Each structure stands twice: as C-alpha cells, then as structure tokens.
C-alpha cells in the first residue's frame, strides 16, 4: 500500500510540480518585457524630442516628429563647443580607466594572495572612499587641483575620479583573482618565472574577463559622474555633461538640442556594454558569484 502510493507520488508529483511552473513561465515573460518597456519609454521620448524643432516641441504634442529634422544633431557635430565636450569627456574617461586598472591590478593581487600588516583595515579604508559623497569633496578638490596647477586639465578629472574608481576596481579584481587557484602561481614560480613575467604572461590572461569588466566599470562611473568633473574644469577640459547644463541655462530652453546631446551621450555606454555583455552579470556581482 505504502509502496503503491509512493510509486503514484513519484509519477504524479513531478508532473503537478512542473505543470504550474510551465504556466508561470509563459506569464513570466511579461515581467521583464514590461520592465524593459518602462526603461525604453523615456529614452524613446528623448529621441522623439531630439528630431523635432523647437516650435514643434513647444507648440504641438506629437508622438512622432512631424517635421523630422536632423538640425539638432548637425549643430552638435559641427559646433566645437559641443563636440569638444564629447572629446574632453572621452579623453579623461580613458585616462582614468587606464590609471585605475593599472594601479588596481597589483593591489588586488596582494589582497587576494597575501596577508600583511593592516590589510583588512586598508581594504575597508579603500572602500570608504567609494562611500564618500562627491559633494563633500567638490570644494577641497577645486582648491587642491588649483594649488598644484592642474585645474582645467583632463588629467585632473582623471585623477579625481580615481577616488571612487580605484577602490571599486580593487574590490572587483580581488573577487575575480580569488577564483584562480593558488597552485597556478606556485607552479609558475617553480618553473622559474619572475613575478612580473608571471603576472603579465600567465596571470593576466587568466583573469582577462575580470579586467574587461573592471575597465567597463571604471569607464561607466567616470562617464556618468558630473559634479567633480564640472568643478575641476572651466573651458579647456569641460565635459559634455557640463556643456549641456550650461547651454541649457544660457540659451533659454532649447529642448531639442538638449535632447540630441543627451541621446548622443548614451551611445558610448551602449557600445561599451555590447562588448562586455557576456560578463555583465558576473561583473556586477563584483566577480563574487
């Protein structure tokens, strides 16, 4: 009797358990789809605005540009004030990414492989800098970088962004490096590799995806930050984000131009994210899954 029931259970229970799961799966589709729609609607509206002229934006309410125009984009791509903003942003973001990754690599290795005097305190201290509100540092940064004569240069912004990018880079890289077995290091040393040669030739290829993810994060956080970048620049290194805020207030309210500039700032991020798409999930978990 018991035996019979359990046989029935074995046959029926999985079927019961699976059936609602399958039904839910079909409905489950809805949630991400609705969410992505929610994410896309404001972006659609931005693009919609960017192809309209000012009259249409202020005068009519249209879901699709009636007088389709590329004038806003033409203005941005031909006016040096605008396109220099993009060049400046990309310059300091690239500098910051290179500096952050280069400095974080050996440090992350030290944290993942060795114990040393004060290591845990040092690690937490690094993280506290990721927690420092940029608004706290805006004024002192302005004074510091003015004092050493770096105000309004790309390198100033690149160095300032190290404040929050390096701790993050160390944190993520440490996660990825801890996933590489220590035996690999030991074998390499026995084989007569020096530390720098081992690190570049053997270790870095092993955590290549981690380095890619970190570069992506440094790029991302440097690209989206405005407060420090705006504080540390005036003319020569002015980032696109600051050009946008100033132009918006200077020439009244040119929404079309603002929308086009905003739409163009999405492009670099979208490009970068496409390249790391397979590692995004693991990267956002700081390599600790």
């Amino acid at each position, binding site marked *: 009797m018991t035996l019979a029931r359990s046989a029935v259970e074995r046959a029926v229970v999985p079927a019961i358990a699976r059936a609602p799961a399958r039904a839910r799966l079909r409905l489950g589709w809805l949630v*991400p789809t609705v969410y992505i729609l929610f994410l896309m609607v404001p972006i659609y509206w931005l693009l919609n605005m960017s192809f309209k002229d000012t009259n249409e934006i202020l005068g009519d309410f249209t879901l699709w540009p009636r007088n389709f125009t590329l004038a806003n984009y033409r203005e941005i791509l031909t006016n040096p004030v605008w396109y220099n903003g993009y060049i400046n942003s990309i310059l300091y973001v690239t500098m910051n990414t290179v500096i952050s990754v280069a400095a974080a690599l050996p440090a992350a290795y030290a944290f993942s492989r*060795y114990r040393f005097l004060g290591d845990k305190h040092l690690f937490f201290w690094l993280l506290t800098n990721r927690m420092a509100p940029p608004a706290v540092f*805006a004024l002192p940064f302005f004074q510091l970088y003015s004092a050493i004569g770096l105000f309004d240069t790309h390198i100033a912004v690149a160095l300032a962004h190290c404040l929050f990018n390096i701790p993050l880079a160390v944190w993520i890289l440490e996660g990825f490096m801890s996933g590489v077995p220590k035996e690999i290091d030991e074998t390499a040393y026995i084989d007569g590799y020096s530390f720098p040669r081992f690190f570049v030739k053997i270790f870095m290829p092993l955590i290549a995806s981690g380095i890619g993810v970190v570069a992506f994060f440094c790029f*991302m956080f440097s690209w989206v930050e405005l407060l420090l970048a705006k504080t540390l620049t005036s003319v020569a290194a002015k980032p696109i*984000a600051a050009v946008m805020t100033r132009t918006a207030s200077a020439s009244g309210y040119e929404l079309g131009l603002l929308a086009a500039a905003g739409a163009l700032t999405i492009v670099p991020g979208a490009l970068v994210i496409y390249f790391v798409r397979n590692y995004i999930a693991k990267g956002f978990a*700081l390599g600790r899954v």
Partner: protein
Amino acid sequence: MDKTWNNRAWFLVLPVLALVAFNAIIPLMTVVNYSVQETFGSNVFFFEGVKWFQEVLRSERFHAALGRQLAFTSIILLIEIPLGVAIALTMPRKGPMVAVCLVLMALPLLIPWNVVGAIWNIFALPGIGLLGRLLNGLGMDYNYTRHPFDAWVTLILMDVWHWTSLVVLLAYAGLIAIPDAYYQAARIDGASRWAVFRYIQLPKMQRVLTIAILLRFMDSFMIYTEPSVLTGGGPGNATTLLSIDLVKVALGQFDLGPAAAMSIIYFLIVLLLSWIFYTAMVAQEERR
C-alpha cells in the same frame, strides 16, 4: 583560500595607496580644517572649536534634509530590491534573449547622471512631456515643479528607472550560479515554487543581495546630480536631499565652516551605516 603572510605585499599596494591618499586625505584634511575655523574672507581664519558641529547638529534645516534623505533611501530600497529580485526571477536563463535583456536593462546605468535628470525632466514636463501630458489627460493635476508630492513621485520613479537594473543584474548573477541539481532535487521533493525561492534561491542570492543593498544604500545616500537637474531641490525645499543642501551651503552661500562640519557629519553617517553592512557581509563570507 589560505593566504601567506608576507609584508612585502605592501609594495604592490603602494600605487593605489598613493593615488587614493592624494585624493582622499588632503581634501579631507582641508574639510576638517575648515570645520573648526571661522573666516571673514581674505584668508584670515580663527579657531572655533566645535561650534560649527553644534550649530549643524542643532539646525532644523539639517534635520529636515537628513529626514528627507532617510525617507528617500528607505523608499527606493523598499521598491528596488524586491522589484529587482522579482524581475531577475522571471528573466530567461538561456538563449539569445538573455544578452538582449541584459544589454537593454543595463542601458540606464550608463547614461550620465545629469542626462538622466534631463531625460526625466523632458519626459515628465506637464505640457510637453509624455508622462506629464498623460497624467494630466487622465484628469490628475500633476505638476512636479509645483506640487511637493508630485516631485517626490517623479524623483522616486526616476531612481527606480535608473537603478533597479543594478539589483536585477546582481540578483541574476546570483541565480545563474545555482547548479541545476538543486532544482532537480527540489522537483523530486515536490517543493512548491515558493519553497524553491525561500530555501534555495534566496539563500544563494544572499551574498549578491547584500552587495546590492550596500551599493544602493551608498549611492542613494549621496545622490546629487539627478535631483538637482530634475527639481533643483524644489518646490521650496521639498526634495532638498543632503547633498543638494550641502552644495547649496558650500558653493551657493560659501559658508565654509558650516559646510565643512556638515560634510564631516554626513560622511560619518554614510560611513557608519556602510560599515554595518560591510561587517555583516564579511561575517557572512567567513561563515561559508
């Protein structure tokens, strides 16, 4: 992993230490310096002790900003964490749609913060924006530049739009790391969907969720650019969060002493709360 004790590892950390110390310690000392002094311009300073700290801690303005900040952070954590987990649970695990979902969801994270503010500004404007027009068309008197409640709703909606994806990506990373064998075992036991979530998925996601809460807490507590572009802290002071208030005092009124004291108190609050999260996380990792 067993780590070898080796103090020479300090040499590997030196570049990081130099770069971060340059950016963190010198400015922080400047702030500390200002926080205990009074100035009447022309670089003349007087030592004031803890006067500014007492003033800030007693000022109603600071209390109000701190209250708004705590309210904002709690609301967005309460919305974004469950929502993010729910979306991650329903996302496809295999197939070409995975990459599409991930790329589209990550997109808001890569938009410069002031552009996020600008996008929502354009999107929610009562006469011009889609959202504003729609809500007014439905008969609601929606105007985020005039009504504090509308400003808050828009602000929260914007933050949910901007940052929920971070929680989704983290939770998703935790979910795909669960081996299939766990689900098979649950199926053999006839576990309900809720039991699978409660006893398999949630514990396995605990670690990434702690990171998500930590990151969302820190970032929402220092939020500045998006609300300053969207509402500028208004209407009135309705959406003046801590950072906005701080910048108003420091760069707007150039009250260096109170601004510096406020900076330090602000930083210490973030630090204390983050330290609690961080210790919890480390304790969790060591238990494994």
